[in-house]
């Protein structure tokens, strides 16, 4: 793909043109990874941009493929690029209108883990955001039911954070039969 790009100047994807005209100040970075357009959006405008991506008739990213997060605490280059934001919340979108795939990333600082929930835009975000909350401790404001989804309810800590030990902090040995609802 990258070779092709060099040979003939390809026009800028429609999504980037549109974002640059409408949300230039929200667009922190743009990239292309294996044919997928990647955009990094400022958290303050994340919801507005995602809503625009879904509702704009030409773009129509109506399918939310995935919501997840990345803990960049050991990725010095990423940290420096985005103002030492520890987490990156990642939305994978798909448009059936011919725009194909799009990856939207939103940097989230450790001291402010709140980010607006997109369950109002895509119903399918419900469990995906719960998983992201369960694994990384990101709080999705406005989520109808933000509980742990994979780990037991009384679990402490967020296991996919890089500082979480692989063998846990003793949960394996000390978990409580009585406290769990079977």
């Amino acid at each position: 793909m990258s070779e092709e790009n060099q040979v003939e100047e390809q026009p800028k994807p429609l999504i980037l043109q549109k974002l640059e005209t409408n949300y230039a100040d929200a667009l922190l970075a743009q990239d292309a990874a294996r044919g997928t357009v990647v955009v990094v959006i400022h958290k303050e405008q994340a919801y507005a941009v995602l809503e625009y991506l879904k509702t704009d008739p030409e773009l129509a990213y109506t399918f939310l493929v995935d919501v997840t997060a990345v803990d960049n605490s050991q990725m010095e280059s990423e940290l420096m690029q985005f103002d030492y934001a520890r987490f990156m919340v990642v939305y994978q979108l798909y448009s059936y209108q011919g725009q194909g795939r799009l990856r939207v990333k939103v940097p989230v600082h450790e001291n402010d883990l709140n980010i607006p929930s997109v369950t109002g835009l895509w119903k399918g975000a419900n469990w995906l955001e719960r998983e992201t909350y369960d694994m990384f401790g990101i709080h999705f404001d406005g989520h109808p039911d933000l509980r742990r989804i994979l780990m037991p309810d009384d679990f402490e800590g967020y296991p996919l954070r890089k500082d979480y030990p692989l063998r846990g902090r003793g949960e394996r040995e000390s978990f409580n039969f009585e406290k769990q609802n079977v």
Partner: protein
Amino acid sequence: MGLDFGQGAEQTDGNIITTTIDKVVNWGRKNSLWPMPFGTACCAIEMMATLASKFDLSRFGSEAIRFSPRQSDLLIVSGRISIKMMPVLKRIYDQMPDPKWVISMGACASCGGVFDTYTLIQGVDQFIPVDVYIPGCPPRPEDLIDAVIQVQQKITSGASPKGVEAVYE
């Protein structure tokens, strides 16, 4: 095939057999184990193969798979058990009527296998008594058949299940 009630049973002339009531009961138990499959991961695929026509566990009298623990006396734990799943497994074990036997199938159920992580039970025997362990990842169907035969041998020998021993200890 003659009736094999084990040692101590004698067939006198004709149609009279002298034996003990325990031996007859155990003979019945051994040949009609009703397994409760607790398949949570890849090992369960091998368990299904064991139950299906090619390996056919019913040759050894254990074809009546029950998905209700209240109707079964052999628990086959095949797969990874997470700390969230363990209370469920414990409850299913508790619901099975005595006497009951437990087979821990595969590395994961027996010791956590390669998943030495925060969420996985490192061996179900920490919480429920296990009679027969099967090594392997996954074990072959023959290994599971062998384990069932080992359980049968335990029953014939009159040994109590691990669970009963644990109660009386």
